[in-house]
C-alpha cells in the first residue's frame, strides 16, 4: 500500500460530509432518501477503514514514520505549517480505532436514526466528525492537529445539539463547545509558546528539539497542552461538559466516548510523550489529576439514574485511568486502554441505545429491569461489554487496565496506584449495578413488556463490538507472561511513544495483577448481591448509609455550582455593571465631549450673528482698515 493514499483517509469522510451536506441542503427530496444517505456515510468510513487496514498491513514497521506532504497551508515570515500527515505506529493504530469503531457506529446509526427529520444532517456531521478526528490523529503538524482538535469540538457541538428544538439540548451543546474552548485556549497558548521555543510546529522537529527547551518553559508548555487535553478528554477541571453531552443521539455518545473526541487528549499526551518525559513534575500532576478524576467520576457514576449518564461518568473515570497511565509514563498502555475501552464503551452505548430505542426513549434505569428476556442479544453483548469494562479477565479491559496499574505501582506512585485500584472497584460496582437494574429482576415499567430486539442493522455492530470487547486485549499480555514477548501492542507503539521503563519485580507485578483480579471478581459479586437482591432498594440503602457523601456524589461534588459562583458569575454578571458604566460615562463621555464642544463653539459663534446690518458693516470696515494697515506696513 502506498503511503500516498494517506490523504484519502481524511478525504473520504470529508467527501461524504460534503455530498450529504450539500445535497441535503440544496435538494429537499434527497433528505428523505435515507438508504442513500446511510449507505454513502457508512461506505466512506468503511472505505477509510479498509484503507487504514491496507496501510497497516502494507507498510513494514521499519519504514515508519512516514511523512506525506500535501501542500503549504499557512506560511509567513519564519512560520510555516504544511498540510502534512504523519504515518507512524501511533497514528496508524489510532486511525484503525477511529475508522473501525466509527464505521460500526455509522452502521448502527442507520437503524437508530430511522425516520429522523435531520437524517441527512446527522450523517453529514458524523462523517465530518470522523474526518476531523482522523486529521487530528494523522496531522504531522501541531497546528493541523489543532484544526482537527477544534473540528471535533465543532462536530460534537452540532451533534449534541442535533435535536435542537429542545432548548436544554441546545444548551448542553453550547456548554460542551465553550468548555472545550477554554481548554483550546490553553492549547493555543501552549502552541504559541512551543513555537517560540522550538521555531517550528512540525512534530518531527518538535520532538527532536524537545530536549533543548529550557525546563521552566517546557513545564509551562506541557501544562498548557495538558490543560487543553483535559478539556477534550473531560478531566478535572474541565470535565463538566461530558455528562450533559448525553443530550445528543446515543450513537453520537458512543462516537464521542469511544472512538473520537475524548481520546484526543490521551492521544496528544502519547504523541508528545518525548516532550512530557522531560518534565517529571508535569507528568506527576497529570497522573494525580487522572487518578482523582478516575475516582471522583466513578463515585458519581455509582449514583446516576440515567443509563447514559452512568456510562458518561464511567467514560470520565476510564479516561482518568488513562491519564494516570500516561502520567506514570506508560503511554502505550494508555493508548492500549483507549483501544480496549473503545470497544467496550461503544458496545455499552450502542446497547444502551438499543434499550432506549426499545423503550421508546426511556432513559431512567429505575423504570427498566428484566429486559434480558426481551432482548437476549442486547443483553449478552451488553454483559460482555460491562464485564470487559469492569476488567474481568480475560476480557479486553483487564489487560490494558492492569498494564497501567502495574506501571503506576512500578513508578513508585503507590498512592495513585491505590486510587486507581479503588476506582476499578467502583467501576465493577457501577457496572454491575447498571447491568442488574436494567436487565435483571422484575420489570418496573409497563413499556418493558413491549420491548423487542432492534433491527439487524443495529444488532450487527453490537456483535462486532462484542467480539472486540472480548478479544481486543489479547494483543498485550502482561510482562509476567512471556516477559513481554506476548506484549505485541507495547512493542508496536514503542516506536512512537517514549514510555518510561520501570523495573518492577515479578512478585510485585503478580501481586498487582492478583489484586486487580480480586477486585474485579469481588466487586462484581458484591454488585450482584447488593442490587440483584434488593434492586432499587439497594440504592436507597446506600443513600441512608452514606448520607451526606451520597448527596455529594449526586450533586457531582457541586462543581458546577462552584464554577458558576467562582468564575461565570463574577466574570459575566460582575463585569456587566462596570462595563455599562464605562460605556455610558467614559466612552460615551468622550463622544459627548466631541459633540458638545462642537455645539458649544457653534453657539458661541452664533452670537456674533446679531442680524444688525450696520454692525456687519462696521466689522467689515474694521477688517478693511486692518488690511489697509497690513499693506501699508508691508510697503514701509
Amino acid at each position, binding site marked *: 500500500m502506498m503511503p500516498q493514499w494517506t490523504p484519502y483517509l481524511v478525504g473520504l469522510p470529508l467527501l461524504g460530509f460534503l455530498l450529504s451536506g450539500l445535497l441535503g441542503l440544496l435538494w429537499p427530496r434527497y433528505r428523505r432518501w435515507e438508504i442513500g444517505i446511510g449507505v454513502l456515510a457508512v461506505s466512506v468510513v468503511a472505505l477509510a477503514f479498509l484503507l487504514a487496514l491496507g496501510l497497516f498491513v502494507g507498510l513494514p514497521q521499519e519504514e515508519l514514520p512516514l511523512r506525506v506532504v500535501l501542500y503549504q497551508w499557512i506560511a509567513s515570515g519564519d512560520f510555516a505549517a504544511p498540510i502534512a500527515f504523519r504515518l507512524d505506529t501511533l497514528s496508524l493504530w489510532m486511525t484503525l480505532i477511529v475508522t473501525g469503531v466509527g464505521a460500526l457506529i455509522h452502521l448502527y446509526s442507520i437503524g437508530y436514526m430511522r425516520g429522523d427529520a435531520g437524517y441527512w444532517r446527522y450523517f453529514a456531521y458524523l462523517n465530518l466528525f470522523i474526518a476531523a478526528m482522523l486529521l487530528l490523529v494523522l496531522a504531522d503538524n501541531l497546528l493541523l492537529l489543532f484544526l482537527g482538535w477544534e473540528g471535533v469540538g465543532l462536530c460534537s457541538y452540532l451533534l449534541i445539539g442535533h435535536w435542537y428544538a429542545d432548548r436544554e439540548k441546545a444548551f448542553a451543546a453550547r456548554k460542551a463547545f465553550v468548555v472545550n474552548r477554554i481548554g483550546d485556549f490553553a492549547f493555543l497558548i501552549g502552541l504559541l509558546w512551543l513555537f517560540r521555543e522550538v521555531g517550528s510546529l512540525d512534530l518531527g522537529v518538535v520532538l527532536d528539539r524537545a530536549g533543548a527547551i529550557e525546563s521552566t518553559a517546557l513545564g509551562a508548555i506541557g501544562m498548557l497542552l495538558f490543560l487543553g487535553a483535559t478539556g477534550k478528554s473531560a478531566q478535572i477541571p474541565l470535565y463538566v461538559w461530558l455528562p450533559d453531552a448525553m443530550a445528543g443521539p446515543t450513537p453520537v455518545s458512543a462516537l464521542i466516548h469511544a472512538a473520537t473526541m475524548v481520546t484526543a487528549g490521551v492521544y496528544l499526551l502519547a504523541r508528545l510523550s518525548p516532550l512530557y518525559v522531560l518534565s517529571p513534575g508535569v507528568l506527576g500532576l497529570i497522573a494525580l489529576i487522572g487518578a482523582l478524576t478516575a475516582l471522583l467520576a466513578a463515585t458519581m457514576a455509582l449514583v446516576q439514574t440515567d443509563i447514559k449518564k452512568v456510562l458518561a461518568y464511567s467514560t470520565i473515570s476510564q479516561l482518568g485511568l488513562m491519564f494516570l497511565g500516561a502520567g506514570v509514563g506508560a503511554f502505550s498502555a494508555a493508548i492500549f486502554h483507549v483501544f480496549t475501552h473503545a470497544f467496550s464503551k461503544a458496545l455499552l452505548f450502542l446497547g444502551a441505545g438499543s434499550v432506549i430505542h426499545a423503550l421508546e426513549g426511556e432513559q431512567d434505569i429505575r423504570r427498566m429491569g428484566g429486559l434480558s428476556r426481551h432482548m437476549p442479544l442486547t443483553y449478552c453483548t451488553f454483559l460482555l461489554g460491562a464485564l470487559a469494562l469492569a476488567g474481568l479477565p480475560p476480557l479486553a479491559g483487564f489487560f490494558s487496565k492492569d498494564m497501567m496499574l502495574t506501571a503506576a505501582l512500578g513508578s513508585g506512585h503507590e498512592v495513585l496506584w491505590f486510587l486507581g485500584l479503588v476506582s476499578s472497584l467502583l467501576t465493577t460496582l457501577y457496572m454491575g449495578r447498571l447491568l442488574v437494574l436494567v436487565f435483571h429482576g422484575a420489570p418496573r415499567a409497563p413499556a418493558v413488556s413491549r420491548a423487542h430486539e432492534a433491527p439487524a442493522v443495529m444488532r450487527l455492530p453490537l456483535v462486532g463490538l462484542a467480539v472486540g470487547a472480548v478479544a481486543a486485549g489479547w494483543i498485550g499480555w502482561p510482562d509476567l507472561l512471556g516477559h513481554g514477548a506476548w506484549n505485541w501492542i507495547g512493542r508496536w507503539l514503542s516506536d512512537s511513544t517514549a514510555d518510561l521503563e520501570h523495573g518492577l519485580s515479578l512478585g510485585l507485578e503478580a501481586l498487582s495483577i492478583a489484586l486487580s483480579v480480586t477486585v474485579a471478581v469481588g466487586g462484581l459479586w458484591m454488585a450482584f448481591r447488593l442490587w440483584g437482591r434488593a434492586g432499587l432498594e439497594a440504592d436507597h440503602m446506600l443513600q441512608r448509609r452514606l448520607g451526606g457523601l451520597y448527596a455529594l456524589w449526586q450533586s457531582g461534588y457541586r462543581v458546577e455550582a462552584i464554577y458558576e459562583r467562582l468564575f461565570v458569575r463574577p466574570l459575566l454578571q460582575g463585569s456587566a455593571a462596570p462595563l455599562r458604566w464605562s460605556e455610558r460615562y467614559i466612552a460615551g463621555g468622550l463622544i459627548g465631549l466631541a459633540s458638545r464642544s462642537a455645539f458649544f463653539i457653534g453657539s458661541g459663534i452664533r452670537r456674533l450673528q446679531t442680524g444688525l446690518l*450696520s454692525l456687519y458693516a*462696521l466689522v467689515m*470696515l*474694521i477688517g*478693511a*482698515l486692518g488690511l*489697509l*494697515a497690513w*499693506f*501699508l506696513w508691508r510697503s514701509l
Partner: protein
Amino acid sequence: MQVVLFGICALLAIVGAVGVITARNPVYSALFLVLNFFSLAGLYLSLEAQFLAVTQVIVYAGAIVVLFLFVIMLLNLRPEDLPRFRLDRTGPLVVLLSLGLLLGVGMGIWSLLGASFPQDPQAQAVGTVESLGRALFGRYLVGFEVVAVLLLVAMIGSVMLAKRRFQ
C-alpha cells in the same frame, strides 16, 4: 480753466456728500445726491472723460436718483417714522474709523500726490467716445454682453420682488 472747474466741482461734491449724510429728510438727501453726482460729472469733464460725464448724468442723476425719489414717495413715510442718526454709541467710533480710513488711503497715495497728467494728444483722447467704444466692443465685448444679461436679470428680479408680498 481746469483748475477752476476742479475746484468748484470738488467743493460741490463734498458739500453734496455731507448733505446726503446729514439731511434728515430722505428727499433732501436724494437732492444732495443729485448735486454730488452732477459735480462728479464735472470732475469727469475736467479729466477729459466726456463720455463718462454724460453717462454719469444720464444714469445716476437721471435714472438712479429718480428711482430713489420714486421709492421715497411711494413709501410715503411720516416724519415720525423717519429713522434717526445712530450717534449714541458707535458714532464717535465710526467717525474715528472713517478718518483713519481717509488717513490710510491718503498715505497709500502719498507718492502720487504730485503726479501730473500727461498732456500728449493720445493720452487726452482716452476718454472720447471712439476710444471707449473700441475698448468696449473689442477687448471687453464679453464683459459688455454679460453686463447686459445682468441688467435683464436685475430687472426681472426687481419686478418679482416688488410684485408679491415678501415672506
